[in-house]
Protein backbone atom coordinates (compact mmCIF):
# COMPACT_ATOMS: atom_id res chain seq x y z
CA UNK A 1 0.00 0.00 0.00
CA UNK A 2 1.43 3.34 -1.05
CA UNK A 3 0.97 6.70 0.59
CA UNK A 4 0.30 9.78 -1.49
CA UNK A 5 1.03 13.23 -0.14
CA UNK A 6 -2.08 15.38 0.20
CA UNK A 7 -0.96 18.61 1.86
CA UNK A 8 0.92 20.16 4.71
CA UNK A 9 -1.31 20.08 7.76
CA UNK A 10 -0.94 23.84 8.20
CA UNK A 11 -2.14 24.38 4.64
CA UNK A 12 -5.21 22.22 5.01
CA UNK A 13 -7.56 24.09 7.36
CA UNK A 14 -10.66 22.55 8.87
CA UNK A 15 -13.64 22.84 6.50
CA UNK A 16 -11.49 22.55 3.37
CA UNK A 17 -11.02 19.74 0.88
CA UNK A 18 -8.22 18.71 -1.45
CA UNK A 19 -8.40 16.66 -4.61
CA UNK A 20 -5.51 14.26 -5.14
CA UNK A 21 -4.78 12.62 -8.44
CA UNK A 22 -2.29 9.79 -8.53
CA UNK A 23 -2.18 7.39 -11.47
CA UNK A 24 -5.70 6.07 -11.89
CA UNK A 25 -6.70 7.32 -8.44
CA UNK A 26 -8.87 10.42 -8.13
CA UNK A 27 -9.51 11.08 -4.46
CA UNK A 28 -11.28 13.77 -2.48
CA UNK A 29 -9.84 14.42 0.98
CA UNK A 30 -11.92 16.43 3.46
CA UNK A 31 -10.86 18.03 6.72
CA UNK A 32 -14.01 18.36 8.76
CA UNK A 33 -14.35 19.07 12.49
CA UNK A 34 -10.91 17.77 13.33
CA UNK A 35 -11.12 14.58 11.28
CA UNK A 36 -9.90 13.67 7.80
CA UNK A 37 -12.03 11.67 5.39
CA UNK A 38 -11.10 10.49 1.90
CA UNK A 39 -13.27 9.02 -0.84
CA UNK A 40 -13.11 8.15 -4.52
CA UNK A 41 -13.93 11.34 -6.40
CA UNK A 42 -16.14 9.51 -8.90
CA UNK A 43 -19.86 9.73 -8.33
CA UNK A 44 -21.93 6.55 -8.32
CA UNK A 45 -24.51 8.27 -10.50
CA UNK A 46 -22.91 9.38 -13.77
CA UNK A 47 -19.28 9.51 -12.74
CA UNK A 48 -19.15 13.18 -11.75
CA UNK A 49 -16.57 14.69 -9.40
CA UNK A 50 -18.46 13.63 -6.27
CA UNK A 51 -16.07 15.36 -3.84
CA UNK A 52 -15.87 18.73 -5.58
CA UNK A 53 -19.22 20.26 -4.70
CA UNK A 54 -20.87 21.94 -1.76
CA UNK A 55 -20.54 20.69 1.80
CA UNK A 56 -24.02 20.91 3.28
CA UNK A 57 -25.59 19.83 6.53
CA UNK A 58 -28.35 17.29 6.13
CA UNK A 59 -31.79 18.87 5.78
CA UNK A 60 -34.21 17.54 8.40
CA UNK A 61 -37.94 17.77 8.92
CA UNK A 62 -39.04 18.95 12.33
CA UNK A 63 -42.13 16.95 13.33
CA UNK A 64 -44.12 17.99 16.39
CA UNK A 65 -45.42 15.64 19.07
CA UNK A 66 -48.79 15.65 17.34
CA UNK A 67 -47.10 14.52 14.08
CA UNK A 68 -47.57 17.89 12.38
CA UNK A 69 -44.75 19.36 10.34
CA UNK A 70 -43.29 22.25 12.28
CA UNK A 71 -40.66 23.16 9.68
CA UNK A 72 -37.24 22.21 8.40
CA UNK A 73 -33.73 22.69 9.71
CA UNK A 74 -30.15 21.81 8.97
CA UNK A 75 -28.82 18.91 11.06
CA UNK A 76 -26.50 19.77 13.93
CA UNK A 77 -24.53 16.57 13.43
CA UNK A 78 -24.77 15.15 9.95
CA UNK A 79 -22.93 16.81 7.12
CA UNK A 80 -22.87 15.71 3.49
CA UNK A 81 -20.74 16.51 0.51
CA UNK A 82 -22.75 16.98 -2.66
CA UNK A 83 -21.81 15.92 -6.16
CA UNK A 84 -21.97 19.13 -8.20
CA UNK A 85 -23.33 17.50 -11.34
CA UNK A 86 -26.80 16.48 -10.12
CA UNK A 87 -26.80 16.70 -6.36
CA UNK A 88 -26.21 13.18 -5.04
CA UNK A 89 -25.42 13.67 -1.35
CA UNK A 90 -22.80 11.57 0.46
CA UNK A 91 -22.43 11.27 4.21
CA UNK A 92 -19.12 12.84 5.15
CA UNK A 93 -18.39 10.25 7.85
CA UNK A 94 -19.16 7.10 5.86
CA UNK A 95 -19.25 7.95 2.14
CA UNK A 96 -22.71 6.43 1.97
CA UNK A 97 -25.12 7.89 -0.54
CA UNK A 98 -27.70 9.51 1.70
CA UNK A 99 -30.88 8.70 -0.27
CA UNK A 100 -29.84 5.04 -0.57
CA UNK A 101 -27.27 3.97 1.98
CA UNK A 102 -26.73 0.65 0.22
CA UNK A 103 -24.53 2.67 -2.14
CA UNK A 104 -21.25 4.05 -0.91
CA UNK A 105 -18.08 5.58 -2.30
CA UNK A 106 -14.78 3.78 -1.89
CA UNK A 107 -13.15 5.04 1.28
CA UNK A 108 -9.43 5.68 1.71
CA UNK A 109 -7.41 5.99 4.89
CA UNK A 110 -5.84 9.31 5.71
CA UNK A 111 -2.67 9.43 7.82
CA UNK A 112 -0.94 12.35 9.40
CA UNK A 113 2.83 12.12 9.70
CA UNK A 114 4.21 15.10 11.50
CA UNK A 115 3.31 18.15 9.46
CA UNK A 116 2.18 16.16 6.45
CA UNK A 117 -1.14 14.59 5.51
CA UNK A 118 -1.13 11.48 3.32
CA UNK A 119 -3.76 9.25 1.82
CA UNK A 120 -3.18 5.49 1.53
CA UNK A 121 -3.97 3.93 -1.80
Amino acid at each position, binding site marked *: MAEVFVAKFAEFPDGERKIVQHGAHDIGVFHWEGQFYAYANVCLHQGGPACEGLIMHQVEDVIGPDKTLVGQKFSDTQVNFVC*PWHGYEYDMKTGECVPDRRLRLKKYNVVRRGDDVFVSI
Partner: protein
Amino acid sequence: MDLPLSSDRTWRVDEFDSGKALAHAAKQAKQRNYDQFPIIDVDSHHYELESFNEILEYMPDPVLKQLAKMANSGNSKGVGVMPGGVGYQDMGGRAIRYPLRRIEKTEPGVHRDVSLTRRWMDVMGIDIAVLFPSPMLQLGLHPQVEAEVSLATAYNRWLSERVLAEESRIRSMIYLPFNDPDASYRMVKEFAGKKGVCGFMITSVRFRPVHHNSYMKVYSAIEETGLPLAFHAGYNWGEQSMGMMNKFIAVHALGFVWYNMVHMTNWVLNAMPERFPKLKVIWIESGLAWLPFMIQRLDNEYMMRSSECPGLKKLPGEYITDMFYTSQPMEIPRDMSLLESTFKCIKAESQLLYSSDYPHWDFDLPSTIYDLPFLKEKAKRDILGGNAVKLFNLDIGAGKRTKVA
Protein backbone atom coordinates in the same frame (compact mmCIF):
# COMPACT_ATOMS: atom_id res chain seq x y z
CA MET B 1 -18.26 35.01 -5.33
CA ASP B 2 -19.48 33.80 -1.93
CA LEU B 3 -21.97 30.94 -2.02
CA PRO B 4 -24.31 30.80 0.99
CA LEU B 5 -24.28 27.33 2.60
CA SER B 6 -25.95 25.54 5.50
CA SER B 7 -25.48 26.85 9.02
CA ASP B 8 -24.59 30.33 7.80
CA ARG B 9 -21.30 29.23 6.28
CA THR B 10 -20.16 30.55 2.91
CA TRP B 11 -17.85 29.17 0.24
CA ARG B 12 -15.72 31.54 -1.76
CA VAL B 13 -15.29 30.59 -5.41
CA ASP B 14 -13.37 32.94 -7.66
CA GLU B 15 -13.51 31.24 -11.00
CA PHE B 16 -15.57 28.70 -12.87
CA ASP B 17 -14.98 26.89 -16.11
CA SER B 18 -17.73 24.49 -17.18
CA GLY B 19 -15.21 22.58 -19.31
CA LYS B 20 -13.10 21.85 -16.23
CA ALA B 21 -16.19 21.03 -14.18
CA LEU B 22 -16.97 18.39 -16.81
CA ALA B 23 -13.46 16.90 -16.87
CA HIS B 24 -14.82 13.49 -15.88
CA ALA B 25 -17.12 13.61 -18.91
CA ALA B 26 -14.10 14.17 -21.14
CA LYS B 27 -12.50 11.08 -19.64
CA GLN B 28 -15.63 9.07 -20.38
CA ALA B 29 -15.65 10.31 -23.96
CA LYS B 30 -12.09 9.13 -24.46
CA GLN B 31 -12.60 5.76 -22.80
CA ARG B 32 -15.66 5.06 -24.93
CA ASN B 33 -14.20 6.30 -28.24
CA TYR B 34 -16.88 8.88 -28.91
CA ASP B 35 -14.69 10.30 -31.63
CA GLN B 36 -15.45 7.19 -33.69
CA PHE B 37 -19.16 7.87 -34.25
CA PRO B 38 -21.53 10.83 -34.26
CA ILE B 39 -23.18 11.99 -31.08
CA ILE B 40 -26.14 14.28 -31.62
CA ASP B 41 -27.70 15.97 -28.61
CA VAL B 42 -31.34 16.61 -29.49
CA ASP B 43 -32.17 18.70 -26.41
CA SER B 44 -29.77 21.12 -24.78
CA HIS B 45 -30.17 24.61 -23.44
CA HIS B 46 -28.83 28.07 -23.07
CA TYR B 47 -29.98 30.87 -20.81
CA GLU B 48 -31.43 33.35 -23.23
CA LEU B 49 -32.19 35.97 -20.60
CA GLU B 50 -28.44 36.53 -20.27
CA SER B 51 -28.73 38.02 -23.74
CA PHE B 52 -32.12 39.57 -23.15
CA ASN B 53 -31.08 43.09 -24.06
CA GLU B 54 -29.79 41.84 -27.40
CA ILE B 55 -32.97 39.84 -27.98
CA LEU B 56 -35.26 42.74 -27.16
CA GLU B 57 -33.67 44.76 -29.96
CA TYR B 58 -35.34 42.31 -32.35
CA MET B 59 -38.85 42.85 -30.96
CA PRO B 60 -41.14 43.91 -33.77
CA ASP B 61 -43.74 45.71 -31.63
CA PRO B 62 -42.31 49.10 -30.59
CA VAL B 63 -44.55 49.57 -27.57
CA LEU B 64 -43.95 46.11 -26.13
CA LYS B 65 -40.28 46.54 -26.92
CA GLN B 66 -40.06 49.72 -24.88
CA LEU B 67 -41.96 48.12 -21.98
CA ALA B 68 -39.67 45.10 -22.04
CA LYS B 69 -36.49 47.16 -22.33
CA MET B 70 -37.50 49.32 -19.43
CA ALA B 71 -38.40 46.24 -17.36
CA ASN B 72 -35.00 44.77 -18.12
CA SER B 73 -33.03 47.96 -17.69
CA GLY B 74 -31.95 47.20 -14.14
CA ASN B 75 -30.62 43.88 -15.39
CA SER B 76 -33.61 42.30 -13.73
CA LYS B 77 -33.63 39.41 -16.22
CA GLY B 78 -37.06 39.95 -17.61
CA VAL B 79 -38.97 40.30 -14.35
CA GLY B 80 -42.35 41.75 -15.20
CA VAL B 81 -42.10 40.69 -18.83
CA MET B 82 -41.58 36.96 -18.68
CA PRO B 83 -43.98 34.53 -17.06
CA GLY B 84 -42.78 31.89 -14.63
CA GLY B 85 -41.64 32.35 -11.09
CA VAL B 86 -40.97 30.04 -8.21
CA GLY B 87 -38.73 27.05 -8.95
CA TYR B 88 -35.52 25.77 -7.40
CA GLN B 89 -33.73 24.26 -10.37
CA ASP B 90 -30.33 24.77 -8.75
CA MET B 91 -31.23 22.81 -5.57
CA GLY B 92 -29.91 25.54 -3.32
CA GLY B 93 -26.74 25.73 -5.41
CA ARG B 94 -26.02 22.00 -5.08
CA ALA B 95 -25.98 22.01 -8.89
CA ILE B 96 -23.14 24.43 -8.60
CA ARG B 97 -22.95 25.51 -12.23
CA TYR B 98 -26.16 27.50 -11.77
CA PRO B 99 -24.77 30.18 -9.46
CA LEU B 100 -21.24 29.98 -10.86
CA ARG B 101 -22.10 30.55 -14.52
CA ARG B 102 -22.25 34.23 -13.65
CA ILE B 103 -18.48 34.29 -13.22
CA GLU B 104 -17.59 32.03 -16.14
CA LYS B 105 -15.40 33.74 -18.75
CA THR B 106 -15.72 33.12 -22.47
CA GLU B 107 -13.49 33.65 -25.50
CA PRO B 108 -13.34 37.23 -26.74
CA GLY B 109 -14.92 37.89 -30.12
CA VAL B 110 -17.29 34.92 -29.94
CA HIS B 111 -20.88 35.19 -28.78
CA ARG B 112 -21.08 34.03 -25.17
CA ASP B 113 -23.76 31.43 -25.97
CA VAL B 114 -21.68 30.01 -28.81
CA SER B 115 -18.56 29.93 -26.68
CA LEU B 116 -20.23 28.22 -23.70
CA THR B 117 -22.12 25.74 -25.86
CA ARG B 118 -19.01 24.70 -27.78
CA ARG B 119 -17.19 24.27 -24.48
CA TRP B 120 -19.50 21.60 -23.04
CA MET B 121 -20.08 19.96 -26.42
CA ASP B 122 -16.36 19.46 -26.93
CA VAL B 123 -15.85 18.02 -23.47
CA MET B 124 -18.77 15.61 -23.68
CA GLY B 125 -17.93 14.51 -27.24
CA ILE B 126 -21.06 15.97 -28.86
CA ASP B 127 -20.88 16.68 -32.59
CA ILE B 128 -24.12 18.61 -33.01
CA ALA B 129 -26.40 20.05 -30.34
CA VAL B 130 -29.99 21.18 -30.75
CA LEU B 131 -30.26 24.22 -28.51
CA PHE B 132 -33.42 25.46 -26.80
CA PRO B 133 -34.17 28.38 -24.50
CA SER B 134 -34.66 27.97 -20.74
CA PRO B 135 -37.05 30.49 -19.13
CA MET B 136 -38.89 30.84 -22.44
CA LEU B 137 -40.11 27.25 -22.01
CA GLN B 138 -42.81 28.91 -19.91
CA LEU B 139 -43.57 31.68 -22.37
CA GLY B 140 -46.76 29.88 -23.40
CA LEU B 141 -48.19 31.00 -20.05
CA HIS B 142 -47.90 34.66 -20.96
CA PRO B 143 -51.33 36.20 -20.44
CA GLN B 144 -50.87 38.47 -23.48
CA VAL B 145 -50.92 36.42 -26.67
CA GLU B 146 -49.28 39.28 -28.55
CA ALA B 147 -46.42 39.36 -26.06
CA GLU B 148 -45.68 35.67 -26.66
CA VAL B 149 -45.66 36.36 -30.39
CA SER B 150 -43.43 39.40 -30.10
CA LEU B 151 -40.93 37.82 -27.71
CA ALA B 152 -40.84 34.59 -29.72
CA THR B 153 -40.25 36.51 -32.93
CA ALA B 154 -37.42 38.44 -31.32
CA TYR B 155 -35.87 35.32 -29.81
CA ASN B 156 -36.05 33.36 -33.07
CA ARG B 157 -34.54 36.16 -35.15
CA TRP B 158 -31.82 36.78 -32.60
CA LEU B 159 -31.04 33.06 -32.32
CA SER B 160 -30.90 32.69 -36.06
CA GLU B 161 -28.66 35.71 -36.67
CA ARG B 162 -26.42 35.67 -33.60
CA VAL B 163 -26.05 32.01 -32.72
CA LEU B 164 -27.07 29.63 -35.50
CA ALA B 165 -25.37 31.71 -38.17
CA GLU B 166 -22.13 31.70 -36.19
CA GLU B 167 -21.73 28.00 -35.39
CA SER B 168 -22.92 25.17 -37.62
CA ARG B 169 -22.61 22.60 -34.85
CA ILE B 170 -25.45 24.36 -33.05
CA ARG B 171 -28.97 23.82 -34.37
CA SER B 172 -32.41 24.65 -33.07
CA MET B 173 -36.05 23.83 -33.55
CA ILE B 174 -37.83 27.15 -33.87
CA TYR B 175 -40.10 28.29 -31.03
CA LEU B 176 -43.70 28.51 -32.23
CA PRO B 177 -45.86 31.10 -30.44
CA PHE B 178 -48.57 28.50 -30.30
CA ASN B 179 -51.20 30.60 -28.55
CA ASP B 180 -51.52 32.35 -31.92
CA PRO B 181 -51.99 29.83 -34.75
CA ASP B 182 -51.53 32.45 -37.50
CA ALA B 183 -48.30 33.71 -35.99
CA SER B 184 -47.09 30.12 -35.65
CA TYR B 185 -47.80 29.57 -39.32
CA ARG B 186 -45.88 32.72 -40.23
CA MET B 187 -42.97 31.54 -38.09
CA VAL B 188 -42.77 28.28 -40.04
CA LYS B 189 -42.73 30.21 -43.30
CA GLU B 190 -40.10 32.68 -42.08
CA PHE B 191 -37.62 30.19 -40.65
CA ALA B 192 -37.88 27.01 -42.72
CA GLY B 193 -34.63 26.65 -44.64
CA LYS B 194 -32.64 29.10 -42.52
CA LYS B 195 -29.20 28.01 -41.39
CA GLY B 196 -29.31 25.77 -38.34
CA VAL B 197 -33.10 25.39 -38.27
CA CYS B 198 -33.82 21.68 -37.91
CA GLY B 199 -37.49 21.71 -36.94
CA PHE B 200 -40.20 23.52 -35.02
CA MET B 201 -40.98 23.36 -31.33
CA ILE B 202 -44.09 23.82 -29.22
CA THR B 203 -43.47 24.40 -25.54
CA SER B 204 -45.89 22.01 -23.88
CA VAL B 205 -46.70 24.20 -20.87
CA ARG B 206 -49.78 25.97 -22.16
CA PHE B 207 -53.50 25.47 -22.34
CA ARG B 208 -54.33 25.01 -26.01
CA PRO B 209 -55.76 21.83 -27.55
CA VAL B 210 -53.34 20.68 -30.23
CA HIS B 211 -56.16 19.19 -32.31
CA HIS B 212 -57.98 22.51 -32.76
CA ASN B 213 -58.82 23.21 -36.40
CA SER B 214 -56.90 26.48 -36.30
CA TYR B 215 -53.63 24.54 -36.12
CA MET B 216 -54.11 22.37 -39.19
CA LYS B 217 -52.45 24.89 -41.48
CA VAL B 218 -49.46 25.04 -39.14
CA TYR B 219 -48.98 21.28 -39.23
CA SER B 220 -49.46 21.20 -43.00
CA ALA B 221 -46.81 23.87 -43.41
CA ILE B 222 -44.36 21.96 -41.18
CA GLU B 223 -45.11 18.70 -42.95
CA GLU B 224 -44.27 20.38 -46.25
CA THR B 225 -40.85 21.43 -44.96
CA GLY B 226 -39.97 17.81 -44.13
CA LEU B 227 -38.70 18.99 -40.74
CA PRO B 228 -39.97 17.52 -37.47
CA LEU B 229 -42.33 19.05 -34.94
CA ALA B 230 -41.34 18.73 -31.29
CA PHE B 231 -43.20 19.15 -28.03
CA HIS B 232 -40.83 20.33 -25.30
CA ALA B 233 -41.98 19.53 -21.76
CA GLY B 234 -41.87 21.89 -18.81
CA TYR B 235 -43.36 22.58 -15.39
CA ASN B 236 -45.81 25.11 -14.06
CA TRP B 237 -46.10 25.47 -10.32
CA GLY B 238 -48.81 28.05 -10.86
CA GLU B 239 -51.28 25.51 -12.17
CA GLN B 240 -54.02 24.60 -9.72
CA SER B 241 -53.26 20.89 -9.44
CA MET B 242 -49.51 21.57 -9.09
CA GLY B 243 -50.37 24.15 -6.45
CA MET B 244 -51.25 21.25 -4.16
CA MET B 245 -47.59 20.24 -4.13
CA ASN B 246 -45.17 21.79 -1.67
CA LYS B 247 -41.91 20.55 -3.17
CA PHE B 248 -40.19 21.39 -6.43
CA ILE B 249 -39.27 17.72 -6.91
CA ALA B 250 -42.99 16.90 -7.08
CA VAL B 251 -43.83 19.71 -9.48
CA HIS B 252 -40.90 18.78 -11.70
CA ALA B 253 -41.43 15.01 -11.61
CA LEU B 254 -45.09 15.28 -12.60
CA GLY B 255 -45.12 18.55 -14.54
CA PHE B 256 -42.52 17.53 -17.09
CA VAL B 257 -44.67 14.57 -18.03
CA TRP B 258 -48.17 15.90 -17.51
CA TYR B 259 -48.40 18.43 -20.35
CA ASN B 260 -46.91 16.01 -22.84
CA MET B 261 -49.40 13.37 -21.72
CA VAL B 262 -52.26 15.75 -22.45
CA HIS B 263 -50.92 16.79 -25.85
CA MET B 264 -50.02 13.26 -26.87
CA THR B 265 -53.47 11.99 -25.90
CA ASN B 266 -55.12 14.70 -27.98
CA TRP B 267 -52.67 14.23 -30.81
CA VAL B 268 -53.21 10.50 -31.14
CA LEU B 269 -56.91 10.18 -30.34
CA ASN B 270 -57.73 12.94 -32.82
CA ALA B 271 -55.84 10.98 -35.46
CA MET B 272 -53.30 13.66 -36.25
CA PRO B 273 -50.80 11.00 -37.39
CA GLU B 274 -53.37 9.91 -40.00
CA ARG B 275 -54.03 13.48 -41.10
CA PHE B 276 -50.33 14.31 -41.33
CA PRO B 277 -48.71 11.01 -42.20
CA LYS B 278 -45.40 12.57 -43.23
CA LEU B 279 -45.07 14.83 -40.21
CA LYS B 280 -42.38 13.52 -37.87
CA VAL B 281 -43.11 14.23 -34.21
CA ILE B 282 -40.64 14.29 -31.29
CA TRP B 283 -41.53 14.36 -27.60
CA ILE B 284 -38.83 16.08 -25.59
CA GLU B 285 -37.77 15.88 -21.95
CA SER B 286 -40.42 13.71 -20.38
CA GLY B 287 -38.11 10.76 -19.84
CA LEU B 288 -39.30 7.32 -20.93
CA ALA B 289 -41.31 5.71 -18.13
CA TRP B 290 -44.52 7.51 -19.12
CA LEU B 291 -44.62 5.82 -22.51
CA PRO B 292 -45.47 2.24 -21.50
CA PHE B 293 -48.20 3.78 -19.33
CA MET B 294 -49.62 5.83 -22.20
CA ILE B 295 -49.53 2.91 -24.60
CA GLN B 296 -51.24 0.51 -22.21
CA ARG B 297 -53.80 2.99 -20.97
CA LEU B 298 -54.88 4.33 -24.34
CA ASP B 299 -54.89 0.94 -26.06
CA ASN B 300 -57.01 -0.57 -23.33
CA GLU B 301 -59.66 2.16 -23.41
CA TYR B 302 -59.60 2.41 -27.20
CA MET B 303 -60.60 -1.24 -27.51
CA MET B 304 -63.82 -0.42 -25.69
CA ARG B 305 -64.49 3.10 -26.97
CA SER B 306 -63.16 3.11 -30.53
CA SER B 307 -66.36 4.83 -31.71
CA GLU B 308 -65.00 8.02 -30.15
CA CYS B 309 -61.89 7.89 -32.31
CA PRO B 310 -63.02 6.91 -35.80
CA GLY B 311 -59.97 8.50 -37.37
CA LEU B 312 -57.63 5.84 -36.04
CA LYS B 313 -56.60 2.98 -38.30
CA LYS B 314 -54.57 1.16 -35.67
CA LEU B 315 -54.13 1.12 -31.93
CA PRO B 316 -53.09 4.37 -30.21
CA GLY B 317 -49.95 2.67 -28.96
CA GLU B 318 -48.92 1.85 -32.50
CA TYR B 319 -48.96 5.54 -33.36
CA ILE B 320 -47.02 6.28 -30.21
CA THR B 321 -44.26 3.89 -31.19
CA ASP B 322 -44.01 5.52 -34.62
CA MET B 323 -43.03 8.81 -33.01
CA PHE B 324 -39.64 9.90 -31.67
CA TYR B 325 -38.46 10.53 -28.12
CA THR B 326 -35.49 12.21 -26.55
CA SER B 327 -33.84 10.18 -23.85
CA GLN B 328 -33.32 12.60 -20.98
CA PRO B 329 -34.15 12.49 -18.09
CA MET B 330 -33.87 8.75 -18.50
CA GLU B 331 -35.19 7.01 -15.42
CA ILE B 332 -32.66 4.48 -14.12
CA PRO B 333 -34.72 2.00 -12.12
CA ARG B 334 -33.22 -0.30 -9.49
CA ASP B 335 -34.58 -3.16 -11.57
CA MET B 336 -32.96 -2.59 -14.97
CA SER B 337 -35.31 -5.06 -16.63
CA LEU B 338 -37.97 -2.33 -16.41
CA LEU B 339 -35.83 -0.02 -18.52
CA GLU B 340 -35.06 -2.82 -20.94
CA SER B 341 -38.80 -3.49 -21.36
CA THR B 342 -39.41 0.21 -21.90
CA PHE B 343 -36.78 0.29 -24.65
CA LYS B 344 -38.44 -2.65 -26.32
CA CYS B 345 -41.92 -1.20 -25.88
CA ILE B 346 -41.06 2.12 -27.57
CA LYS B 347 -38.85 0.62 -30.28
CA ALA B 348 -35.99 2.62 -28.83
CA GLU B 349 -33.42 1.28 -31.25
CA SER B 350 -34.97 3.31 -34.05
CA GLN B 351 -37.12 5.93 -32.24
CA LEU B 352 -34.96 7.10 -29.35
CA LEU B 353 -32.73 10.16 -29.68
CA TYR B 354 -30.02 10.91 -27.14
CA SER B 355 -30.38 14.23 -25.35
CA SER B 356 -28.33 15.78 -22.56
CA ASP B 357 -30.48 18.71 -21.44
CA TYR B 358 -27.19 20.25 -20.36
CA PRO B 359 -26.69 22.53 -18.46
CA HIS B 360 -29.92 21.87 -16.58
CA TRP B 361 -29.74 20.14 -13.19
CA ASP B 362 -30.81 16.68 -14.37
CA PHE B 363 -28.62 16.46 -17.49
CA ASP B 364 -27.58 13.09 -18.89
CA LEU B 365 -24.17 12.29 -20.34
CA PRO B 366 -23.85 10.09 -23.44
CA SER B 367 -22.64 7.33 -21.08
CA THR B 368 -26.20 6.96 -19.76
CA ILE B 369 -26.93 5.33 -23.13
CA TYR B 370 -23.51 3.97 -23.95
CA ASP B 371 -23.19 2.00 -20.70
CA LEU B 372 -26.58 0.27 -20.88
CA PRO B 373 -25.84 -3.43 -20.51
CA PHE B 374 -28.71 -4.63 -22.70
CA LEU B 375 -27.84 -2.64 -25.84
CA LYS B 376 -25.58 -3.82 -28.63
CA GLU B 377 -22.94 -1.44 -29.98
CA LYS B 378 -25.00 -0.58 -33.08
CA ALA B 379 -28.08 0.30 -31.01
CA LYS B 380 -25.98 2.48 -28.72
CA ARG B 381 -24.57 4.37 -31.67
CA ASP B 382 -27.97 4.73 -33.33
CA ILE B 383 -29.53 6.17 -30.20
CA LEU B 384 -26.57 8.44 -29.50
CA GLY B 385 -26.49 9.84 -33.01
CA GLY B 386 -27.52 7.64 -35.93
CA ASN B 387 -31.26 8.02 -35.42
CA ALA B 388 -30.95 11.80 -35.23
CA VAL B 389 -28.71 11.96 -38.29
CA LYS B 390 -31.43 10.21 -40.27
CA LEU B 391 -34.36 12.08 -38.75
CA PHE B 392 -32.86 15.52 -39.30
CA ASN B 393 -30.91 14.50 -42.39
CA LEU B 394 -27.79 15.96 -40.80
CA ASP B 395 -24.56 16.59 -42.55
CA ILE B 396 -21.95 15.38 -40.10
CA GLY B 397 -18.97 15.00 -42.35
CA ALA B 398 -17.99 11.96 -44.35
CA GLY B 399 -15.83 10.35 -41.67
CA LYS B 400 -18.62 9.94 -39.20
CA ARG B 401 -21.41 9.53 -41.72
CA THR B 402 -20.10 6.10 -42.75
CA LYS B 403 -20.53 4.94 -39.17
CA VAL B 404 -24.27 5.66 -39.32
CA ALA B 405 -25.48 3.77 -42.38
